[in-house]
């Protein structure tokens, strides 16, 4: 598996190479690719934690098994920007070790050239998701 830093750098370069409208297209591709939560969570939505920093009802849950991190998100279809943020974090962090996730850079949301495309304000939700993922991982290690 590519290291988190290498994967992040590649993704950052991909975004940086695009025009602002193309960055939004890529973000929408991520939004469409966000996996659905498994059935045991759709039946127990109370297990997920609300990400209050987001403008939409976003919930997440981190599961740790054998030192491997699995991340689940629910984000409404009507909030594609937020889905895109969740999906980026999912693609970077899901399946990694506890240490990799716990030490992931807090600057991931700032490193993808998205500020000009979506506004710094909207990026706050992504920071909230990342902080909550890292906190849950620490609690469950």
């Amino acid at each position: 598996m590519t290291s988190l830093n290498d994967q992040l750098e590649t993704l950052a370069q991909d975004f940086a190479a695009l025009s602002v409208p193309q960055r939004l297209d890529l973000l929408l591709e991520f939004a469409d690719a966000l996996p659905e939560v498994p059935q045991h969570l759709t039946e127990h939505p109370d297990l997920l934690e609300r990400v209050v920093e987001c403008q939409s009802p976003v919930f997440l849950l981190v599961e740790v098994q054998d030192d491997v991190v699995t991340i689940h998100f629910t984000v409404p279809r009507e909030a594609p920007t937020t889905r895109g943020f969740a999906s980026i974090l999912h693609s970077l962090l899901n399946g990694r070790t506890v240490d990799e996730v716990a030490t992931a850079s807090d600057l991931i949301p700032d490193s993808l050239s998205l500020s000009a495309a979506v506004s710094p304000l909207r990026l706050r939700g992504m920071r909230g998701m990342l902080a909550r993922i890292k906190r849950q991982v620490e609690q469950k290690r």
Partner: protein
Amino acid sequence: MPIGFDTDAKINEYAHPEVLVTTSWVAENLNTPGVVIVESDEDLLLYQTGHIPGAVRIDWHTDLNDPVRRDYLSDDAFAALLSSRGISRDTTVILYGDKSNWWASYTLWAFKLWGHSDVRLMDGGRDKWVAEGRELSQEAPEVPQASYPLIKRDDSALRAFRDEVRAHLGSPLIDVRSPQEYSGERTHMPDYPDEGALRAGHIPGAISVPWAKATNEDKSFRSRAELEALYLGENGLTPGDNVIVYCRIGERSSHSWFVLHFLLGLPNIRNYDGSWTEWGSLVGVPIVQGTEPGSINN
């Protein structure tokens, strides 16, 4: 030639029926020359997931705000923005968006700062259009470059600044935020990011009329009679009042501004776009906490 107005009965009860159209009117005017449809959303990717065929996007944050100063665009940049969207000075602009047209109202208010004469909201916004199963397109429209003239923005009639709000204390102020923000339990909307006000509460004397009281379940505006009962009856405004509305950054209050100014016809109504993120961080200004409006003296 001016584009015809919507003859819908509910719309024609309002004080200014020329600023509102129904989803049906829009569906019939998708290809009418001289009409440009503009989507303004909270979530700017929604447009890309599917928009009214031919509609262009204007984003409240990345398009309408100056990228450096906390202010709206320069006059040059506004002219360039509208030209790039195929809008001329005489274009009929139809605005719609998510969240009951919050951001579309905000865009409309901004258009009025530059005095664009024919700009209308689609009642019910994006949600109503989608709920009715109307057509959506992911195709980026081919927009012919227009030539919007350089217009000097005039803030005087529609926009209130903090010193004007201070001088206005004792006159009608409407806080359109949630009850929790008004009382000072919190500085930002439940479920929304904190945009950084240092103190919580409301401007002394401001009455609390949350913006959403003006909307129906389907996101459209309530009838004129219902709106009059709310603002003029229950909350005691009179049509001649000089009123300032505010919220957190001026977006929800644009919605209330639209209702009071155009649907009820109050002539003197300004939006304080600095709103709570400014007032709640100013040094030394009076603030009231709790559910009562309070006054400047307490």
